[in-house]
């Protein structure tokens, strides 16, 4: 992207134009960031390591929502259910049939992707609210299929125990080893999604999002690309579900609720749709805020014991909602947009134009 750069800085080759990391300073920052990710377990408590691992899993799932909704413009309200498909596929394969983790991870993703294609079929005919209802149906139908018909396989409404992930002789049982596994996949997925947006497929998605009739007139196979977006989005949900199952080592249908699907959509709204950075910032913002309000309740109760724990719990939840509402009022394009503005100002400083 050649915009918002100081005068005189331009690309001289196509390779430079296509590069994600453009300067030595950016390379340095990227390497420093990756090193930082590697050393996180040495510096943070188990509690915050658990938070970071959860954030990484959710980033993968929200990247999926971003592909479907942010890039391709197709609303999806069933992401948690697709995550459940990946989680249960992986749990059943590894727990009952002893399939190695890596295969479980891929099969979990593919199973969720195929489920996504089935529930994405209505997107060919309907859009907007109607498509939202169709994907909402996925949430309830998939959870029904997990709970009722085959409880002897899925565990029904109860927990399904999942063995820990094992890869190359390493068993990922501790918080820090799980962190490395999850973070590695999250970085890989982020790299994949970043590149997807720059490919022919990604441009087709964006064209469909902006105007599907015009896209079709330009020769884009709308049917194919919409289903491909659902497949990729749900594949990523499946990968996230599989990682979550092996990380928690117990899953139940209650962990893949409709509320979670709504939160996933909320996360890309807060982070910013249609950018790779959006899901990352959205998930980090919501999850960290969630942790802080969880801490704030007991802290407030200790300071004001006469108020009562129910009032303090309600107060912190209200403040959580208020922060999000204020945020959407003042920055409706998401945190990623704010970050872009900040970067531009920094690059052009002290000349603001």
């Amino acid at each position, binding site marked *: 992207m050649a915009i918002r750069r100081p005068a005189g800085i331009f690309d001289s080759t196509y390779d430079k134009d296509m590069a994600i990391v453009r300067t030595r300073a950016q390379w340095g920052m990227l390497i420093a960031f990756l090193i930082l990710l590697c050393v996180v377990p040495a510096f943070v408590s188990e509690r915050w390591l*658990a*938070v970071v691992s959860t954030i990484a899993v959710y980033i993968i799932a929200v990247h999926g929502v971003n592909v479907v909704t942010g890039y391709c413009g197709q609303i999806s309200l069933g992401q948690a259910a697709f995550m459940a498909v990946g989680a249960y596929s992986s749990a059943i394969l590894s727990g009952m049939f002893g399939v190695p983790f890596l295969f479980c991870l891929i099969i979990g993703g593919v199973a969720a992707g195929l489920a996504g294609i089935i529930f994405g079929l209505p997107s060919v005919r309907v859009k907007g609210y109607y498509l939202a209802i169709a994907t909402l149906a996925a949430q309830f139908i998939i959870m029904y299929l997990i*709970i009722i018909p085959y409880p002897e396989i899925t565990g029904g*409404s*109860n927990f399904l125990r999942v063995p820990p992930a094992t890869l190359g002789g390493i068993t990922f049982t501790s918080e820090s080893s799980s962190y490395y596994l999850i973070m590695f996949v999250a970085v890989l997925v982020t790299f994949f999604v970043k590149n997807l947006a720059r490919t022919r497929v990604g441009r087709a998605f964006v064209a469909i999002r902006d105007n599907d009739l015009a896209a079709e007139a330009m020769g884009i196979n709308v049917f194919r690309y919409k289903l491909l977006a659902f497949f990729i989005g749900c594949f990523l949900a499946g990968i996230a579900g599989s990682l979550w199952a092996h990380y*928690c080592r117990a899953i139940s249908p209650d*962990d893949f*609720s409709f509320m979670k699907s709504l939160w996933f959509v909320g996360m890309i709204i807060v982070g910013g749709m249609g950018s790779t950075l959006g899901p990352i910032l959205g998930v980090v913002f919501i999850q960290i805020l969630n942790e802080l309000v969880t801490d704030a309740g007991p802290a407030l109760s200790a300071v004001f014991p006469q108020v009562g724990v*129910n009032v303090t719990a309600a107060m912190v939840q209200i403040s959580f909602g208020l922060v999000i509402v204020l945020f959407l009022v003042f920055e409706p394009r998401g945190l990623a947009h704010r970050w872009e503005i900040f970067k531009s100002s920094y690059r052009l400083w002290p000349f603001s134009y």
Partner: protein
Amino acid sequence: MTNKLKSVFLCMVAVVLVASVCLTACAGPTAPPEEKQPLRIVMFGDMTGPLAPMIGVIPLMFDDYFNWANEENGGINGHPVEAVVIDTKYDVSVCRSAYKKEKDAGMLLGMCGGASMVFMAVSQFAAEDEIPFVLDCLLSEGLYPPGWFYSLYVPTDDRVCGLADWFLKDWNESRKPRLALLMGDYGAGKAPSEAKWYLEKQGIDVVIEEIVPLNVTDTTDHLTRVRDANPDFIYDTLLVHQQKLALKDRVRMGMQDIPWYTFIVNYAGLSSMVRPEEYDGYVVLAETADSWQQDIPGVSFIDELWVKGGHPGEHAPNYAPPAHNMLAADAIKRALDKVGDENISGQAIYDALAQTKNFTADGLLLNPASFSKEKTRGSDYIQLVQLHKDGPPTIIAKDVPCPWNLKLRAEAGQ
């Protein structure tokens, strides 16, 4: 004053001063009263989130009880209780990180307030970290295989097994009795499905399994399907707002003749929301007392705490959570007595929980509860209590034994 008198007076003052200095020195240092180490008990409960309207009272009652214990008794054996309430919002990730934080903060005992999420998030760590948990929820998976989780409840699937055995005793027809399961859409609510193998083994046809959403506003379609399945009896795990709708629709749809059993009831709450003719004949599978049993000392005590806590109504909505709080306090007290103030630990409390025998919680438990390391389900019996439109509830069956579904299932290789 003459010089002689002045000297005598000064001598007397000097003697008094010297004497007081000597006495003070002999008395040793006057240290402030020794403050014992606080005991950190953590309630992981849903105060917000989808289940909060139904189970949000559990953390409130936990807070009330340990506030009372601190104010009236100075805590447990002189140790102040740090009663911490964590709002887990029905979210596994919050439960998991909160558990890790509380472990580092020195949590001695955890309590799960009603939602299964906490168990799911921490089940793999409790034994490893030696932190026992009191499960204040009807989750059968929390209790089998036995581990570091103890509960006074009979789980929802065990209850339906007990009900089925009791129902079969008076069954005289040649065909199998037909049972409809009307289940609330939450973890323990859907658990009766897990007992289907036992029910079928005992000769009962489960003709329909209907799941009622938490945010339901009308149960007509659910009850229509249940009625069409033609059951001989119905077992529900509906929460109070779902019960309210179902009982109203039951009368409207003329289903009063089908015997209808429920897993738990808030009698004061239900009778204030539903007309008497709508709950007439409804049978509760109870292991704890309720507000209509004011002659039980525990009930009036808990009602007093409820009113003192400034909550609405004159009766507590549920008497099982206080029983679990009492169990926690009792186990900690016995652990302190056994290992001493300095050596109190999660392991000592776990051992004390396992040694609990004939615990009644001031009469709140209708049958005394006992535990061992192999038996983490405290209650083995329920009572069948029928509600009436023109009088207080009556007990129609006492001491109905409840099979331990998951244990039997594992033993049967299912």
